[in-house]
């Protein structure tokens, strides 16, 4: 188990009801975090529409996460 700070944005934050929480998760990658928090962020978006950052760097879903990392889950963006 790793201690992961998960941050939710926009729609994901509204679904989760919190913007940030510390969770004990059995995860290897950013994708694992997304899937194991699905009941929190509530997303049924195709993964390719969402983005992820690890420790404030844009990341891939295959990016490894370590104990103490923060994982930022971004719903589909809509700038401009």
């Amino acid at each position: 188990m790793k201690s992961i700070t998960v941050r939710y944005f926009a729609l994901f934050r509204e679904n989760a009801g919190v913007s940030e929480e510390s969770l004990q998760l059995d995860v290897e990658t950013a994708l694992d975090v997304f899937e194991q928090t699905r009941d929190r962020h509530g997303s049924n978006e195709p993964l390719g529409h969402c983005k992820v950052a690890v420790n404030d760097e844009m990341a891939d879903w295959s990016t490894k996460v370590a104990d103490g990392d923060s994982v930022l889950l971004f719903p589909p963006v809509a700038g401009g």
Partner: protein
Amino acid sequence: MFAISEDSIDTSECRRMMSDHAAGGFCVFEGWVRNVNEGRTVDRLEYEAYEPLAVKEGEKVLAEARQRFPHLKATCVHRTGLLDLGDCAVWVGVAAPHRDEAFRACRYIIDEIKIRLPIWKKEHYTGGDSDWVNCERCATVGRHTGAGN
């Protein structure tokens, strides 16, 4: 320079900052809050950004434009918070020696800004309900056919 702004964008001041005696062409794109989207009447918009990464990714987009089209001056400012109809949500300005680079770089920047930066848009409709805009679809379509604004 890329910036996120909680206050309304001073487009005259943005323009003044672009002044450059080596530039012969200046192209601006502004995204405005419009009164309708996909058939629904919009009263106002709300933009949320994750500023640290939006700025980092925005600067990256501007650097890419400068690499593709040398001798550019390029700036982008993106609003956050509540916006009313007609408000400027995003301002992109490019000054270049000639018009072709100015147009192409400006288009490149706004196309990338729309799909890469952690920025989200919530539409508030007449009647009181609201919705986060899923712009993954409109951005993809927009690059090819011009849907999305």
